[in-house]
């Protein structure tokens, strides 16, 4: 689903954010991307989102080399990818429902269809009763879940998350990961950047470790364990 071939990214200031990164995320696979702050996790996600372009190497998403994607095609490409941001990126001049409906509105869904999907997404994250509220009045965990609902509302094939548990207490963080696993189970490929090693270590998912822009470890668990300790 996502393939990096010798991808390097150097920012205009000269900072080498990614250095010769190679990996492949299969269709329906779920992986964590970890490493210290500044290791290049966010840059890697930004390259997939086409918020940045690689200087070297190629990135193939869903069979397409996105390095050659012209600028005007980028919005259509982004609609296939759901993203959960650490700072949620919500709009506080509209209510929860309108925040989640935004991707559908952009894509031009008929109103009744959009309504059905938004309610389904809000139901999934447990916020169905709060659709009329302003996100500013909700807690950090709830804001996070609005962001997740918005990321999945148009049923993307790929879900990216940048430090989704960064501001959450352990219990909420675990709930968020459980939610992600549910999406993964229905076939969504997932790449989650997180430095929360204690949380990741409990889960038996593939872990990609970045250090100074280099991919230094790729620990793959082929099977999800049914009980702890079976690996």
């Amino acid at each position, binding site marked *: 689903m996502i393939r990096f071939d010798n991808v390097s990214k150097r920012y205009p200031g000269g900072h080498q954010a990614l250095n010769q990164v190679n990996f492949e995320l299969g269709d329906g696979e779920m992986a964590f991307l970890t490493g210290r702050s500044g290791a290049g996790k966010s840059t890697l996600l*930004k390259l997939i989102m086409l*918020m940045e372009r690689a200087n070297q190497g190629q990135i193939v998403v869903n069979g397409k080399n996105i390095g050659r994607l012209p600028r005007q095609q980028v*919005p*259509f490409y982004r609609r296939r990818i759901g993203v959960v941001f650490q700072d949620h*990126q919500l*709009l506080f001049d509209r209510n929860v429902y309108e925040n989640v409906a935004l991707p559908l509105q*952009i*894509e*031009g869904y*008929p109103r009744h269809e959009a309504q059905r999907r938004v309610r389904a997404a809000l139901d999934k994250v447990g916020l169905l009763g709060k659709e009329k509220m302003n996100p500013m009045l909700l807690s950090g965990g709830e804001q996070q879940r609005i962001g997740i609902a918005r990321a999945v509302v148009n049923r993307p094939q790929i879900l990216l998350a940048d430090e989704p548990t960064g501001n959450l207490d352990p219990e909420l963080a675990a709930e968020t990961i459980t939610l992600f696993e549910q999406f993964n189970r229905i076939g969504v490929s997932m790449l989650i950047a997180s430095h929360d090693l204690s949380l990741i270590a409990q889960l038996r998912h593939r872990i990609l470790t970045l250090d100074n822009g280099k991919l230094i470890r790729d620990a793959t668990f082929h099977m999800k364990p049914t009980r702890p300790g079976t690996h």
Partner: protein
Amino acid sequence: MKKRSPDTRSGARTQQVTLKSGLQSRWQNHLDVAGSSLKKLLAAPFSTVMTVAVIAIALLLPTALFVAMDNLSALSEGFGRFSRITLYLEDNLGERDSSALSEQLLARSDIAAVEYISPAQGAEEFARYSGLGDVLALLDDNPLPGVMLVTPADSVAQSSTLLGELAGLEGVSLAQLDLQWIERLRLLLETAGRASAALMLVFALAVLLVIGNTIRLAIESRRAEIVVVKLVGGTDGYVARPFLYTGLWYGLAGGLLAWLALTLLLWALYTPTRELLALYDSQHELRGLGVAGAAVLLAGSGLLGWLGAFISVRQHLSAIEPS
């Protein structure tokens, strides 16, 4: 080119946007955006009114100038009907020669009418209008020459060539174009017309700048929203749309206010100008923009608003990218 094509490989996603529903919702989106951008403007009435007032003033000046020019040229055309050439005949020209000359003139295609005033008639008129009849009576002879009043068939512009030809005719001692000032007025109006066209351009530019700057501020204040919309796949067109509608509303509101102000101005001037013109024997009534003129003003101001927003959007929107 892959564009919104549904991915058939994955079952995780079913395509819900058909062409028909896509067009419908696009139209719906235009309506929604037009409505919501208008609502946003009305939500901040003070700053909106300030901007609209500036636009209206910038539109009012050239429009008022245009209306003034329009009235003046209509007025001068009215005067054109009265432009006549006066031929002062030789003293020794008899009645018979005079009527021969009169017929000769009438035969010309560039002359509409000829009126002969004999020296005797002239003296009578002079006595009547000047009140100096007694002075004439003191003289032995009537000193006034015979006069032919020639009305040219064509406009004032061609009268001067006719004037030259008539002056050369036998029996004519002097040919004089009456109301030569009308020709000067016409030229003056033409010059002023050019100047007002140039002014119109300048003021149109001012409107563009005002709207462009207002939209720039609006873009800046909605930076976060633009970033989010771009992140979840909003096209440049989608992001630009609310700003273009905002520009359109500003332009239209400015045009409407300018029209309103102009109408009030003309209403206030109507009676005084009519009285003034009546003194000059003119039936001219002050005329405004009319329906067509108002339509042009509104369409033009709307277009200017849209264009100003478009330029601003082109300049500033691409600079805002999620990072």
